[in-house]
């Protein structure tokens, strides 16, 4: 497997780019890349030329920390530092809903694979908030159980600031990563906390399930390691090292054979899951890489794999994955 640089869009935003996601293809258009930035805008890009697909989308008062796209490719959501989530129509950029949470209680978010629920990492609330995507109402909140040692007055939930969230491909499990390095796994249908996955001791900023196996979970952590867990058996399967600084983002390739990571050491790495080692390092960015995203399969006649990475240096890089 191999990554080949296709194009880099310099100064794609006015400020650091913090979030990226692919909007799946619909019947009348191919997949688009969605990026969110400190400059308070969200932008849409056409592949492979990385040309703007729409004028910059405003609506946020502070930097955009997370973007997510509905699997149908019609709706997308963006969240900013002031904890407002804006849900909008991708085609027309008309706002569908504004989801408000108490400040500091919105971080990463992801749509359920079937699209019925939007899961939001609840930051200081030490929980994952679930929003219904038809009525845009808060339907549930999966709280991480408090450890006995933590004081009841401590509102931060004993260091359980929830930063990241991931759905298993079958939609039954939800994992969230916290600031103290623990990963919590929930059974969504029973709305029940299952167990913690341990092994990290620093903030876990990104999580992703393998698209092929609902048991396999990958985590990116500030301790510079990428872990591969058996999320059901509570086992650490592998710990992969190679980055020189925090790992900020991880994504799994659609074929399930590889993962890509972005890091504070300004590189993007491709990891071979059979070798469980880094096979390629891309150094196209000049500042820390906040997000990496593989393009989901689908769309008319698009077979080639694509990986996008966004960085503090205001640029977007697009790679061919084969």
């Amino acid at each position, binding site marked *: 497997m191999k990554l080949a640089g296709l194009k880099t869009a310099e100064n794609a935003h006015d400020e650091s780019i913090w979030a990226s996601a692919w909007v799946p293809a619909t019947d009348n258009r191919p997949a688009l890349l969605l990026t969110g930035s400190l400059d308070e805008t969200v932008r849409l890009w056409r592949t492979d030329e990385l040309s703007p697909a729409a004028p910059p989308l405003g609506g946020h008062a502070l930097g955009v920390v997370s973007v997510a796209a509905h699997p149908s490719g019609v709706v997308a959501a963006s969240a900013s530092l002031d904890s407002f989530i804006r849900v909008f129509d991708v085609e027309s950029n008309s706002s569908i809903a504004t989801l408000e949470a108490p400040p500091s209680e919105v971080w990463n978010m992801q749509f359920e694979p079937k699209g019925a629920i939007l899961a939001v990492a609840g930051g200081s609330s030490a929980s994952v908030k679930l929003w219904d995507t038809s009525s845009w109402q808060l339907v549930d909140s999966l709280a991480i159980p408090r450890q006995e040692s933590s004081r009841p007055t401590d509102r*931060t939930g004993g260091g359980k600031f929830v930063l990241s969230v991931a759905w298993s491909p079958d939609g039954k499990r939800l994992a969230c990563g916290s600031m103290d390095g623990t990963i919590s796994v929930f059974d969504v249908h029973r709305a029940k906390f299952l167990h913690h996955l341990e092994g990290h001791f620093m903030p876990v900023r990104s999580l992703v399930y393998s698209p092929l196996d609902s048991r396999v979970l990958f985590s990116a952590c500030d301790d510079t390691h990428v872990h591969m867990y058996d999320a059901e058996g509570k086992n650490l399967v592998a710990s992969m090292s190679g980055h020189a600084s925090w790992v900020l983002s991880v994504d799994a390739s659609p074929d399930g054979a590889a993962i890509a990571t972005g890091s504070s050491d300004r590189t993007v790495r491709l990891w071979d899951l059979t070798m469980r080692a880094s096979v390629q390092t891309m150094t196209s960015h000049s500042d820390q890489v906040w997000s990496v995203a593989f393009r989901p399969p689908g769309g008319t006649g698009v077979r080639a794999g694509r990986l996008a990475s966004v960085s503090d240096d205001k640029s977007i890089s697009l790679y061919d994955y084969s």
Partner: protein
Amino acid sequence: MAGEEDILAHLQQTLSSDPENPSNHFNLGIFLWKKGDIVGGDESKDFKSRAAEHFLASARLNPGDSAAFRILGHYYSAVVVDTQRAIKCYQRALSLSPDDFEAGDALCDLLDVNGKESLEIAVCKEASEKSPRAFWAFRRLGYLQVYHKKWEEAVQSLQHAIRGYPACADLWEALGLAYHRLGRLTAAIKSYGRAIELEDSKIFSLIESGNILLMLGSFRKGIELFRHALEVSPHNVSAHFGLASGLLGLSKECASIGAYEWGASLLKDASEITSACSHLSSNFSSVWKLHGDIQIAYAKCLPWENKITSTHIDEGAFKASIIDWKNRCLSAAKKARLLYQRALHLTPWQSNIYADIAITLDLIYSLLERETTDHDTRQLSERMSLGSLIFEGINCDFWVILACVTNDYALKQHALIRGLQLDNSLAVSWAYLGKLYIKLGENHLATRSFDRARSLDPSLALPWAGMSVASHDRNYSLSEAYESCLRAVQIMPLAEFQIGLGMLAAVSGHLLSPQVFSAIRHSIQRSPYYPESHNVHGLICEAWSDYQSAISAYRLARSALRIASLSKDSAKRCLTDVSVNLARALCQAGHMLDAEQECEALNKDGMLNCKGLQIYAVALWKLGKNDQSLHVARNLAKNVSTMEESSCTAAIGLICQLIYRISGLESAISTILKLPGEYLNGAKMSLILSAINALDPNNRLQLLLPTNLSSFGAYDLIIEMHTITATNKMIQNGSEQSLDIHSGVKYLRKVLRLYPDSRLLRNHLGSLILYSGDWLASHIAPRCTVLPTGYPVKTGLKSPFEIHGGAGVACYASCVTRPKWLHQEPWNHEARYLLILNLLQRAREEKFPHIFVLV
């Protein structure tokens, strides 16, 4: 080589002659060991094994010799690699001689490599207990204790070790760290300093002592250390961070004493350093936060520069310069907002960054205020400060921040009271509560809150300023208000406080105070858009008799007023006041034409009030337009009945003076006689009356004069009345051409007995004596005048210096006084003239022609 062979043969010979002597074995062993060191490879091993045999023999024969065991230890650890045996040999060596640092260090290294740390500590402890000279043991023990954070014990071990190795920089550094962690900061600084002295490049010591110095507030020294650290290691993030925070601290110090320009330049440096630092490592949240802090400080410190120096003030240029300054502040604040967001994105669990963003947003809104007042955006800062409270609801500072950023009075009050519930000695909260109550008109509650705040923390500026505002409806005197406002300004040089101080100074007569002067200068630098600051600046310049500056200040005030978005009515009122001030300053500076134009412009708008009329009249009279002047005076007279008492007497006084000057004595007297009696009661009026009366040979106004002079409260007034009476006496008794000076002198002498300490009387008397032409005059005159010290008050009369000078010329006396006079008033031509005259006379007398050259 031959020599070595000989020595070997000799050693072997001695050994074979006395095989029971351990020293013979030992010496041979040493020789072979050294040889093994010199040659390499297998041969070395060979030599060393031979040496070891001899050492073994030596040790067997003399089991008390530690050196043999030590070298055996070396042999086992390095050549044979038998750790256990090596450890045993070293232990034996140490038990024989605990001071043996070679064996000790080698043993500890061995233990360390094998991870037997507790054993290592035990060995060191044993050795240190056995011998106080086992410095190696103390050193190692000290390091280990530092490693395990047992600071108290580490200090003792390290201090002992330093006795053995006083030049070991590492020891001093470790001692510094131990002191630092124990909170003994001065001791820590000293230890670190010693380490740096011994070894220039001790980066840890440099940075840590720098940090301590910053904590103690000695920024300059800290900055020096960090700069040094950066020279040693130019990519050190901590050194960058420390340097930048040191500069930030120093700049805040500068800003607090009013050196805004300097502070801003320091902050610029600091900002560059932090950028470099964040480039080195972009995932340190603290670096981004520091950079944000620096930008905020810059936005709050950047001074407005008054580039407009000419008297002609271009309003457009003024406006442009203010907008430019504001934009620079705004862009710094906006930068800070982005930087804080970066910090927050890296560490979203740090509650204080939420509060930082809230404060930044608030600053941005306050800078934008005159352009937008969007309700929605205002809520954002409130929201962010709530974010910080979600994490730490028990942090009372966050409650105060919430109160400051919100616009909702009920929420403000709630947040402040919540802060007080958490910490009932929170002075800041009381102070803001007071401010809130003032805004709501609850003056009684406000003063009580301020009182609380002040007694809890007297070093807080806001309650002092608040007290001076709340003074209106209490028995808090004007001068007390001035004093407390002055205190507030001294504690915190905020533009609003400074302007308030200036205004209080204007009404309480402290305009000449240098503190007020500097405060207003500072307020102009920080808030040039306030017309008040320019206006008060003008008043101060006027009080210092610097009319040119006053004129330009008033003009700036007027431009600022036109830019400011005030309501139409208040803008008009302010504009009138400033214009009247301007006209007065112009008048006093002698620009009568400009003054007249100002008044005319006001007149056109119908905004000419009584003060304006007075100035108008004076300006017209000075320009020689007597008729117009009288016309204005008549207008003024019409309004007299509607005026307040104080301005009324001033107006009437002016009218009388004008009539006297323009139409002469007769019409003045007739006007005065026509005036209703109640207008003539004031002290100033009496002065004018008596002056006119004095000039009138018929004394027609005698009846109107107050009979008892001492009924006046003011001391100065009485004296002046007396001098006028003296003049009156001279006129009355004198002939057509000359005054009867002697009667004046006689009268003044009498009065002087009543008021012996009056300078004015003495001056008068002195000058009269000089005029009298008495042959003794030149001796008496200097004796009855007193030379004043300090700033001489200008009066129309002769100054004491002049009298002294005149007397000096008259009697060719010493020329001591004249240089003094000249020194105090270097612009005074008369003084120079008298001095030259005096020198000439002396020179002529003593026939020293070279003095002419000097002159």
